[in-house]
């Protein structure tokens, strides 16, 4: 075998995998087939199954994060369309589909178109949160685009009559189903946005079959809504129905009634808030006036003429008291300072070594020890007498007991 380029099994499968993965035609594809060998792994939450038709069969895996999102449980024998990537499971060198979404085939091509358009607009950023406009809190003109005879407009009128009769509804009637419907929806939207100029636009219709709602999945309508300068609330069908219109609008309401509710404040709550505010302002101004009246009455009271005198007297007394007290404190302070000072002086003086040798005082030492009593000295003792200006060495000749007798 020398001379041949020998590959390992791992190498050839890795090559095959990268060859397939690089092929853009094999990712994001839609495959139609019948489900067999369906298994939902209890622990991992992943789905494993095969898709087959009369000619072939292919393994599929759908990871939990995607499996969690589908609204129905796939079953063996079910005809479906899956959105997936084709890739290679290297351990078995098996080609398989990595599935992101499963739709029952019964819904047909319309649904596929819906999914494709949704993915496309989403990729273009038409559904981005950053483009969503803020709804006005107190709309005075509400534009409505729906059928002039359907339940939707009645529901909206009912809710607004109860919640926010302040508003004016401007309805542009359109047909909300049928071939001509998207075109009418688009021109109504243009008219609302550029001529009627309401504070908010509600676009929608009541419930119906998915076929009935399909006008709201029109791509041009979606782009028109996106370009709209007025905030748009979408309310198409029932809570469970989702349309392209819902995704691109600034807000999706589950039903037309809900749209009316979301677009309007509650008049009763607002009334209450005005009442509360007037009460608050009144309280505030009364408090403020009281404060000033109080202040004023201290100077000019009509009821008691001598109030001012009393007030002044009281004030004067207080002042006197305070100044007296201050004087007293001040004196005390001085006194205590003074005594402290003399004490300190005395202390300083006492420790002054020169003081020992002051004129009238001398120090007497015997055997190098200070003598403070005559009792310790006897005739014949040698003593030293220290004066401030000299030292005398002396011998005691005589001693007299008792105090000095000058």
């Amino acid at each position: 075998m020398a001379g041949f380029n020998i590959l390992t099994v791992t190498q050839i499968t890795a090559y095959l995998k990268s060859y397939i993965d690089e092929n853009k035609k094999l990712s994001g594809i839609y495959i139609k087939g019948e489900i067999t060998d369906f298994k939902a792994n209890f622990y991992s939450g992943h789905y494993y199954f095969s898709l087959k038709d009369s000619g072939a069969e292919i393994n599929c895996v759908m990871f939990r994060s995607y499996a969690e999102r589908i609204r129905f449980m796939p079953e063996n024998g079910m005809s479906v369309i899956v959105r997936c990537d084709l890739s290679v499971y290297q351990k078995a060198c098996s080609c398989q589909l990595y599935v992101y979404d499963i739709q029952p085939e019964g819904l047909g091509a319309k649904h596929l178109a819906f999914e494709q358009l949704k993915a496309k607009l989403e990729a273009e950023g038409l559904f981005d949160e950053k483009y969503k406009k803020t709804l006005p809190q107190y709309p005075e003109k509400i534009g409505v685009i729906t059928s002039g005879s359907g339940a939707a407009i009645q529901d909206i009128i009912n809710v607004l009559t109860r919640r926010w009769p302040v508003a004016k509804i401007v309805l542009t009637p359109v047909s909300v189903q049928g071939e001509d419907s998207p075109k009418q929806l688009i021109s109504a939207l243009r008219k609302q946005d550029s001529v009627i100029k309401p504070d908010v636009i509600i676009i929608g219709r009541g419930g119906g079959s998915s076929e009935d709602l399909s006008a709201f999945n029109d791509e041009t309508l979606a782009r028109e809504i996106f370009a709209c300068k007025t905030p748009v609330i979408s309310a198409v069908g029932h809570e469970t129905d989702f349309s392209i219109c819902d995704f691109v609008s600034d807000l999706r309401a589950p039903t037309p009634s809900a749209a009316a509710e979301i677009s309007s404040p509650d008049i009763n709550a607002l009334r209450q808030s005005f009442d509360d505010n007037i009460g608050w302002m009144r309280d505030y101004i009364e408090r403020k006036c009281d404060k000033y009246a109080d202040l004023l009455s201290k100077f000019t009271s009509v009821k008691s003429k001598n109030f001012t005198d009393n007030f002044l007297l009281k004030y004067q007394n207080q002042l006197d008291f305070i100044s007296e007290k201050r004087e007293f404190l001040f004196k005390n302070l001085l006194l205590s300072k003074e005594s402290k000072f003399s004490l300190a002086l005395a202390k300083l003086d006492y420790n002054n070594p020169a003081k020992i040798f002051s004129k009238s005082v001398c120090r007497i030492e015997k055997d190098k020890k200070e003598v403070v009593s005559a009792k310790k000295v006897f005739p014949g003792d040698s003593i030293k007498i220290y004066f401030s200006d000299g030292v005398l060495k002396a011998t005691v000749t005589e001693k007299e007991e008792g105090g000095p007798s000058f």
Partner: protein
Amino acid sequence: MKKEIKFEEALERLAEINEKLESEEISLDDSIKLFKEGLELSKLCQKKLDEAKLEIEKIVID
């Protein structure tokens, strides 16, 4: 004051008045002026709410 004041504007102005009233530095004169304005504004809004009647207009597309 404009007769046709928008709700949004009226409520903004009321919030502003409340804030000013609440600040301590304001003089009695100014606070009375603000109080009067706030009261008028509140009453105007309330009147608007009380008299409100849903108006419906149909404008057909060409």
